[in-house]
């Protein structure tokens, strides 16, 4: 009933959607025993797929795997521990809402807040900088999480000369390197990748050409509306079936070959890639973004090194992870249904792993939206 965004900006036309789904089913009907396997690497893609109920209608010959695309989930426990340590030591910490309840080795920022720490949820890094400006006599640390799209915003704020009491605890990640790792994992049988549309609007789709050439796997740039997603799947299935690797830009209204050069310049002026550990995936060369030397005066790890060192000396209790399969799930090797803890011992209220905490975590999304629960067509 509401007059919403013009229909042409919301690609939710149901007739076209069903036609695309029918076509996908026809094109994969001889692969039911060995489904065509596509991986996406974006938590928001999984959110969109789940939210629009696409999982319940994807054809059986097509398997869409959720890769390590949830920036919250892949933020490793030690990084969260650092944020918690700073908060517990009395420093004001600003964070995106998604990170608030993610558990570190011992506790989350929400737990720290419950014990009296000053943890503020912000909706943009700009807001965090403004908070610092409003209280110049005390430090404010921004827990900078998210992938490259979000890192662009952080870079923009640094380039605009933030107040001296503002600093960053950086945990930004960069996606293309992790696609390499997944492509080379022997256990995965991924035949094509759906790349994140908003990240590609920054980096351009050209960055995927070397990847395609190296691995012979097609890449489609996918948007976030139902038709965008289905078109992305269709383009990949077509290339997989005809054996023609290549890059398809299925999100032309946002993505060009070279991307947003201005944003790229700002990003790489402030950050540089470095190796890092992604929760559950072990080492990802060039997968983390760290502040370049000239920006390290804003590095909270240096400013508050003493407090962080003290916190590191407190032994963490033995990890409860146990049978948590977040790592495998994020690598696309397992689904939440394969994890013994899913829905039993591990729920959003009492999460064991990051995948259940984050709104973009695979387990959380499956728990909320039903995952592969066969939501059968008609009921009374």
């Amino acid at each position: 009933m509401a007059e919403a965004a013009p229909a042409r900006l919301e690609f939710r036309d149901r007739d076209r959607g069903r036609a695309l789904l029918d076509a996908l089913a026809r094109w994969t009907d001889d692969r039911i025993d060995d489904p065509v396997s596509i991986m996406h690497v974006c938590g928001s893609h999984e959110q969109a797929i789940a939210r629009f109920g696409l999982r319940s209608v994807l054809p059986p010959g097509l398997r869409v795997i959720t890769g390590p695309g949830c920036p919250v989930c892949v933020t490793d426990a030690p990084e969260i521990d650092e944020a918690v340590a700073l908060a517990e030591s009395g420093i004001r910490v600003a964070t995106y809402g998604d990170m608030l309840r993610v558990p570190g080795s011992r506790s989350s920022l929400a737990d720290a807040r419950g014990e009296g720490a000053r943890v503020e949820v912000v909706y943009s890094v700009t807001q965090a900088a403004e908070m610092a400006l409003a209280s110049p006599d005390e430090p404010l640390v921004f827990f900078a999480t998210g992938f490259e799209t979000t890192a662009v915003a952080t870079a923009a704020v640094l380039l605009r000369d933030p107040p001296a009491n503002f600093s960053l605890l950086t945990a930004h990640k960069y996606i293309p390197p992790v696609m390499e790792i997944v492509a080379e994992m022997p256990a995965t049988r991924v035949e094509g990748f759906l790349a994140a549309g908003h990240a590609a609007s920054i980096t351009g789709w050209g960055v995927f050409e070397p990847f395609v050439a190296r691995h012979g796997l097609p890449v489609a740039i996918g948007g976030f509306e139902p038709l965008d997603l289905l078109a992305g799947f269709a383009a990949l299935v077509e290339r997989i079936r005809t054996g023609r690797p290549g890059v398809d830009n299925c999100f032309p209204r946002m993505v060009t070959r070279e991307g947003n050069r201005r944003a790229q310049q700002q990003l790489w002026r402030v950050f540089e890639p470095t190796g890092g550990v992604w929760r559950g995936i072990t080492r990802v060369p060039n997968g983390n973004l760290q502040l370049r030397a000239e920006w390290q005066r804003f590095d909270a790890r240096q400013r508050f090194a003493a407090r962080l060192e003290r916190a590191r000396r407190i032994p963490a209790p033995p990890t409860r992870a146990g049978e948590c399969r977040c790592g495998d799930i994020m690598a696309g090797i397992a689904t939440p249904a394969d994890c013994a803890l899913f829905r039993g011992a591990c729920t959003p209220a009492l999460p064991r792993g990051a995948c259940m905490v984050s709104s973009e975590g695979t387990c959380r999304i499956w728990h909320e939206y039903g995952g592969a629960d066969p939501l059968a067509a008609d009921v009374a």
Partner: protein
Amino acid sequence: MRKDERIGLRHGAGGPAMRELVRSVFARNAIARDDALGLANLDDAAAVRVGERWLVYTTDSHVVNPAFFPGGDIGRLAVSGTVNDLAVMGATEPLGLACAVVLEEGFAGAQLLTIQASIEAACAEAGTSIQTGDTKVMGRGEIDGVVITTTGFGFADRLVRDDGLRPGDDIVVTGTLGDHGFAVLARRNDLRVEGDLRSDVAPLNRLLAAALAAGGDAVVAMKDPTRGGVASALHEMAEKSGVGIVLDEASLPVRAPVRALSELVGIDVLHVANEGKALLGVRPQETKRVLEALRAHPLGRDAQRIGACCEQRSGRVVLDTGFGRRLVAESDGELLPRIC
């Protein structure tokens, strides 16, 4: 709730954590009775038989922050919330309200007078009044502004519970979704959005009286979707009734600014509080008549049938998006905007 546990914000969010707290602590010794509706039922109100009728009674604490928001304030909320809890049980003519107020030292007199004016206006709309209450003041910082607890009671000829749904019954909502929750969210979270976001807070007893007059026995269940939104309310109804519910996304009535904000912050309209809406379970033969009665009333103009009950997936709520189907989960705690 274990001794070593602490209360979290989720325990007040209207969802599964809160229900669990109530069941395991406050209602732990509750025993179900045939001649009364009580703690064991965990319905919107309690009721005892008096002669041929039921005396329904309920209480609510109101802690909304900010106390003043577009479309209303804590005073209007304090009256509407309690009147509505009575009304959705079938007690649409409240006999009276009692109101306990706890104020923080330093609370502005001007604000208190505004709140009182709102209370009086809401009572007039509901056809009731506050005849007794209590006043306390706590030291600065010992309480946040003002807390108002309202208790109400009224007679119902027929008790309408929240567990009466059967497969085939229709789910009707009396108007647009998410208005209150998003109006408050926009104000308190420094989101800096501007738009026509207004709380829908209003007493619904006269609207629901019209619906009951039109539908009679065919109105088999009612609930007001406050904290936790339509998702929580329908989950409770589905669980208690032993049915599944399928909602049709295209028929959910949502105002444009609410929809826009929902997309912007990534919070589902179904998870957000409504303070001037009710959900009705209606036998399908009478749905049309009930909708007509609702729409004839100013508070029910946007009433819609939004779904139906089924046998499958008992206790679960499913959304048909037009592309496919997915579960509607309950939000379990704070509604945190995703990166916007």
